[in-house]
């Protein structure tokens, strides 16, 4: 699975234009760490709703940029929230953070 799916990203770029894609990437890179932090705090405080909503948001944005690995992991983690199985997250949150770091550096490179 690619870190950033080229076709999806190019489509997004074509739709938004050079300047706007940069703004979009910056916004995502600013907000995604907050979503990951919310997932963690939701997990720590056993607040399923906070956790699930943050995972949902992250999944949605990752898919928008074509960040396939990140989107897949966020989706798995969202499902655990939906099914009320937060205890099963295991090291998947760690994997999500790594996927985010990779997506982050690729996206930075893709800025015009």
């Amino acid at each position, binding site marked *: 699975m690619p870190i950033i799916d080229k076709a999806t990203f190019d489509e997004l770029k074509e*739709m938004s234009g050079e300047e*706007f894609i940069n703004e*979009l990437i910056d916004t*995502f890179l600013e*907000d995604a760490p907050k979503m990951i932090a919310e997932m963690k705090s939701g997990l720590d405080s056993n607040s399923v709703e906070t956790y699930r909503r943050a995972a949902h948001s992250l*999944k*949605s944005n990752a898919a928008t940029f074509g960040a396939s690995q990140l989107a897949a992991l966020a989706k798995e983690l969202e499902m655990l929230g939906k099914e009320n199985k937060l205890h099963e997250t295991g090291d998947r949150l760690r994997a999500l953070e790594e996927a985010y770091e990779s997506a982050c550096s690729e996206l930075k490179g893709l800025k015009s």
Partner: protein
Amino acid sequence: MKSTHEPGQMLVVDDNRVNRLLLTRALEQNGHLVSTAENGKVAMEMLRTKPCDVLLLDIDMPEMNGFEVLEALLQDEELRYLPVIMTSASDELDRVVKCIEMGAEDYLVKPLNPVLLRARVNASLEKKRLRDEQRKLFRTFATPEVAEQLLREGFSLGGKYIKATIMFSDIRSFTTLSENQDPSATIELLNNYFALMFDAITANNGTVNQMEGDGLMAIFGAPAYRENHRRDAVKAALEMVALLKTFNEQRVVQNKDEIQIGIGIATGTVIAGYTGTEHRATYTCVGDAVNLAARIENHTKVAGKSLLIDKYTREGLPDHIHVEGLGEVIFKGKQQAISVFAVNG
């Protein structure tokens, strides 16, 4: 009718900034004006203060989610018909179905497809405009209450028996009057006159359903049922007489002839419904009370009174309305003599 491609005022509701930016951008590229809200609560506040043509609504949001917004819209008389397009993730179609059941117009899956976005927004915009025009149209011949009922329940070209009060009114010696002035003055007179009469009728919950020449017919107690339809009709008639007095005072100042009207009112069971075709329909009623109201109106000339009513209408009036019995009259086409009363205010 306006074209589909005219810009509209959009409200994008999403707790996610990237989604808001993207949607705003795509809508602005199609020429629309866009406002944004980060949750349902903020959106509802904006909707109540600012006009909006189409709402693009996320489901999952803090404070107030998409379901709660749909519910709040349904409760709101003004916002009930606002087209809502749900924006959702591809894996939550079960929730989208629930939203459509709750009144949402359509949905879009994120990440957005710009072509679908344009098509769905334009379709919703068109619906909104159609509805607005329909509403405006209904309101010109009915009370806002009736207009809302029609919008809510739609037309059904079928009849039913209802108890209602019927009013007929026309201008005395209108033909003579119009022969003595130029045609544009006649049309102007009619327009000013009808505007006043409509005000009095709709303000008292009546529906004007026919206008012919200088005459009009109005229904009270239908299409929306009103318990006090008899009193409403007489109150409307008294207001019509009072408004006409002011109208005549102005005409005298302008050196124009005064006009006199006759109003006849009768109450009874009638068959009411929409007659016509799907494309052109009018709400009307038929029955004895309709004929009687027309006859009574005609009788105002003989009786020399401006407002006459039948016995059943009289029985529904409060004591403070002064009514004078004029005895029984046998009308053309009627077997029985009818008691007629003049209302003097």
